[in-house]
């Protein structure tokens, strides 16, 4: 049994990396990954919110939407739950733990429109995971997101010193780097 959980984690982090293989959460990946420090902050915020959101949406799916047979309301229900959850987390963190709020605060509003959160919440339903598996799956995906973000930020910090052709400066060069990184992650295919 434990073996299966390890496979879920490794699969989520390396083989089907959420950013580099499944293309979820590209906006923050491109937007806030110019420094390693902000990448770590964003990774932490996503880990926190993704796990919470998956737990809450899983419960809503199985105890509200399925008993009333209104699964087609999934998209509307999920996006509302995630949006209000992010607001609530922000308010609670501000009161309870100002230090953590200082570290994660600026990233929280960005997370509502991060498709990785909604994507993973829908994926665990599609894969028919139970609650424990869903939580493990979301932790693995968030770790994969953080890993990709931090590696990418590390590379981008060094790219400032390079002499890049005029037309490729900025986003195009970053996209090429992301492509090469995705190529490297393809090497993990077949591990699970």
């Amino acid at each position, binding site marked *: 049994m434990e073996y299966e959980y390890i496979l879920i984690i490794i699969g989520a982090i390396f083989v089907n990396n959420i950013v580099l293989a499944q293309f979820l959460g590209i906006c923050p990946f491109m937007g806030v990954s110019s420094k390693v420090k902000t990448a770590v902050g964003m990774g932490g915020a996503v880990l926190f919110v993704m796990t919470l959101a998956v737990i809450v949406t899983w419960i809503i799916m199985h105890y509200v939407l399925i008993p009333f047979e209104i699964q087609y309301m999934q998209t509307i229900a999920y996006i*509302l739950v995630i949006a209000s959850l992010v607001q609530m987390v922000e308010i609670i963190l501000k009161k309870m733990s100002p230090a953590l709020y200082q570290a994660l605060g600026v990233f929280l509003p960005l997370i509502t429109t991060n498709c990785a959160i*909604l994507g993973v919440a*829908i994926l665990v339903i599609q894969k028919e995971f139970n609650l424990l598996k869903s939580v493990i799956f979301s932790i693995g995906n968030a770790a994969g997101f953080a890993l990709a973000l931090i590696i990418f930020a590390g590379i981008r910090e060094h790219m400032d010193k390079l002499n890049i052709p005029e037309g490729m400066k900025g986003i195009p060069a970053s996209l090429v780097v992301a492509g090469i990184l995705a190529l490297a992650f393809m090497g993990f295919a077949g591990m699970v």
Partner: protein
Amino acid sequence: MNQWKNFTKGFIKENPVFILLLGLCPTLGVTTSAINGLGMGLATTFVLLMSNTVISLIKNVIPNKVRIPSFIVIIASFVTIVDLVMAAYVPALHAQLGLFIPLIVVNCIVLGRAEAFASKNTVLSSMIDGLGMGLGFAFALTILGAVRELLGSYAIFGYKLINTDGMLVFVLAPGAFIGLAYLVAIVRRINK
């Protein structure tokens, strides 16, 4: 305002993908072939057109403080409609696009146009803006899909041009990033 200019700005001048770099997740995720790109683009166009129309119709009724949640609910309703209609009439395409259909909700272009344009302009202008931006998005996705299909399997819209295997890497994840990188660089060059 010149409505023709309003309509055509989405194609090159303010193209949501190539210039504004919004909605990168579906752009990279579904463009393994031209037809997938076109399907995703048209689905997004429908949502964008309808949400822009409805939001500009009721913009005076929505209190300013709850405008973002209201926009999200309106968008999510149209996404659900698209999701159900596609599942019923084009099940093969629906299965190919998969997770990215519900994720139109968190596509930054849709909420972005609602907030930046539809909540401030007349109904007719908003409809034209939604249609133009949506078709610009569909245009970008079709081009990227066509490039990847052409290089990845030497085919276009499913018709094989050369009867051998293509450069597989362009169909896989790295090809998406690198293909988009060069297209963005080319469009920037044209715009200059």
